[in-house]
C-alpha cells in the first residue's frame, strides 16, 4: 500500500483549508491515500458545511481580524491558530469501513496511537472524542468529498480559550461566561512536539491503512514542508500534488473564500439556544422578560447553573438543579415562581 505524506508546513489560513479539500478531490480521481499536515500562519474561524453562520459572532470576528471559512465536512464553529498542527487522512471511500461512525473511529485510532507514542495518555471515548481523562485534546471532523473519505483534526499545543469563546454567538453575558468557563474545564492543549507527533502519525497510519487493505505496509513518499514543522531547505510541497489537485486548489481558493459560500443558506435556528463544548457537554440558555437561565450539562446532568433575575431563592434553586437530570429538574422547578417558569421553559425546550 502506498501512502503519500505531505507536510505543507506553515500556510495561509485559506490554504490550510483548501489544500486538504484539493487532496480529497485528487484521491477521488486516483491519487494515493494521503496523510497531510499544515499549520495556519494566522488565526481564523472554521465552520462545518451545515452550520448556520448565525452560530458565529461575525462582528466579533471582524473586530478581531479573524476571517471565517466554511469547510466541506461536519462539526461546529472552531477557532484555529498557529498553536495547532492540522492533520488530514484522505483515502478512497472503498477503503474505509462501510459504517460512517466506524470509519471515523478506525481513522482516528492511529491519531490516538500517535499521541500515546509521544507520551500523551490519550483515549478515544465512546463518542469518538480524543480525550485525556474527560478533557478533549483534539478536534475532528469527517466526511465524503467526491468519492474520497477524509478525517481532519488538530494537535493543539496551545489553546486560546478566550479567543475560542469569543467567536461563538451567545445570547447574553451569562451564557458567554459559562461557555468560556466550560471550554476551560473540558478542552485543553497538550505539551507535545509537533514533529514527533507527525513522525508517529506516519507510522501509525501506515500500519492502519495497510491493515485495512490486508496488505503489508508499502512505500511511504514523505514530502516535508517548510518551518515551523518542516525543514528549512524543503522544496515546495505543492510539487507533490497532481495537476488535477493543483487545478482544484485554485478553484477551491475561490470557492472557500466566496462570501456566498461562507454565508451558506439561512435556516431556522432551533430553540433554545445551545452550544456544544465537546461531545456530551453543552451549554443551554433561555431568557424571558423577567429572568435569564443558563444551564451547563454533562451527559444530560446539570452541572452548572447561572440565574439572573431570580429573586431571593437563587441559592436554593441552584442547589436543587445541580446534579439533576432534565426530567427531574423540570418537576422540581415547576413551583419556583417566575424563575422557575423561566427554567421550566428552558427545560421543556431542551427535552
Amino acid at each position, binding site marked *: 500500500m502506498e501512502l503519500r505524506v505531505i507536510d505543507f508546513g506553515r500556510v495561509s489560513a485559506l490554504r490550510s483549508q483548501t489544500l486538504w479539500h484539493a487532496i480529497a478531490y485528487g484521491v477521488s480521481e486516483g491519487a494515493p491515500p494521503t496523510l497531510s499536515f499544515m499549520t495556519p500562519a494566522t488565526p481564523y474561524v472554521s465552520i*462545518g458545511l451545515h452550520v448556520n453562520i448565525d452560530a458565529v459572532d461575525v462582528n466579533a470576528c471582524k473586530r478581531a481580524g479573524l476571517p471565517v471559512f466554511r469547510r466541506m*465536512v*461536519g462539526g461546529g464553529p472552531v477557532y484555529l491558530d498557529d498553536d495547532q498542527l492540522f492533520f488530514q487522512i484522505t483515502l478512497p471511500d472503498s477503503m474505509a469501513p462501510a459504517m460512517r461512525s466506524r470509519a471515523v473511529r478506525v481513522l482516528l485510532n492511529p491519531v490516538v496511537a500517535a499521541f500515546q507514542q509521544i507520551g500523551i495518555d490519550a483515549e478515544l471515548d465512546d463518542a469518538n472524542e480524543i480525550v485525556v481523562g474527560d478533557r478533549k485534546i483534539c478536534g475532528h*471532523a469527517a*466526511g465524503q468529498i467526491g468519492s474520497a473519505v477524509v478525517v481532519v483534526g488538530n494537535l493543539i499545543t496551545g489553546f486560546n480559550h478566550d479567543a475560542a469563546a469569543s467567536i461563538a454567538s451567545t445570547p447574553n453575558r451569562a451564557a458567554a461566561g459559562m461557555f468560556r468557563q466550560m471550554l476551560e474545564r473540558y478542552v485543553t492543549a497538550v505539551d507535545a512536539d509537533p514533529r514527533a507527533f507527525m513522525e508517529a502519525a506516519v507510522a501509525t497510519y501506515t500500519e492502519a491503512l495497510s491493515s485495512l487493505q490486508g496488505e503489508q505496509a508499502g512505500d511511504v513518499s514523505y514530502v516535508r514542508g517548510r518551518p515551523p514543522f518542516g525543514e528549512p531547505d524543503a522544496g515546495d510541497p505543492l510539487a507533490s500534488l497532481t495537476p488535477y489537485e493543483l487545478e482544484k486548489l485554485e478553484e477551491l481558493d475561490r470557492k472557500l473564500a466566496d462570501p456566498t459560500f461562507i454565508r451558506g443558506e439561512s435556516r431556522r435556528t432551533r430553540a433554545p439556544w445551545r452550544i456544544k463544548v465537546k461531545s456530551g457537554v453543552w451549554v443551554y440558555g433561555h431568557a424571558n422578560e423577567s429572568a435569564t437561565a443558563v444551564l451547563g450539562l454533562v451527559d444530560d446532568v446539570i452541572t452548572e447553573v447561572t440565574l439572573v433575575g431570580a429573586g431571593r431563592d437563587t441559592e436554593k434553586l441552584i442547589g436543587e438543579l445541580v446534579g439533576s437530570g432534565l426530567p427531574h429538574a423540570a418537576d422540581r422547578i415547576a413551583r419556583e415562581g417566575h424563575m422557575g417558569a423561566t427554567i421550566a421553559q428552558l427545560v421543556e425546550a431542551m427535552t
Partner: protein
Amino acid sequence: MIVHRGCAIPDGLSYDVDRDLWVRFEDDLARMGLTDVAQTRMGKMVSIRFKRVGRHIEAGKSIATVESAKWVGPIHSPFDGEIIATNDEAYAADILVANRDPYEAGWISIVRPDDPATAPDGLLTSDAAVEAYRARIEMLDLSCYRCAD
C-alpha cells in the same frame, strides 16, 4: 420486497447500487432517496441541506448533503436534470425520517431528468438490482437497522 441481512430492497424501484440511491420514476419525473443501506451506513441524521428547487444538476453531482455526528456526505444524482421538489417539510418535522422510512416518507428530491427516455448507466431494476444489492451488502459486511419510533 426482499430483505437481505435486515436491509430492505423494495420491488418496483430502480437502484444506483454504488451510490446507495433509489429512484422511482413517476411519468417524466424521478423521485429519489437513500436506500436502507445508505441510512444504515450514515447513522442517525442530524441535518440535511437540499440543493434548491429549479437548480439544474449534472449526473454525479449532489442533490443534497447529509450530516450525521461530524460526518458530512453528498447524495449524488444518477442523471442530469432539474430539481422539481425537495422534501424539506418532512425533514423539518423529523430529521430522522430517512432513518425510519427511507423509501416512502424519507424521500429526498424529485428531479426531471433531461433525457427521461434513456436510463443512465448503472441504474438497475428488478432482479438485477436485487442481486447487485445483495452482493454489495455482502461486500460491505453490513446489517441494516432502522430508528424506532
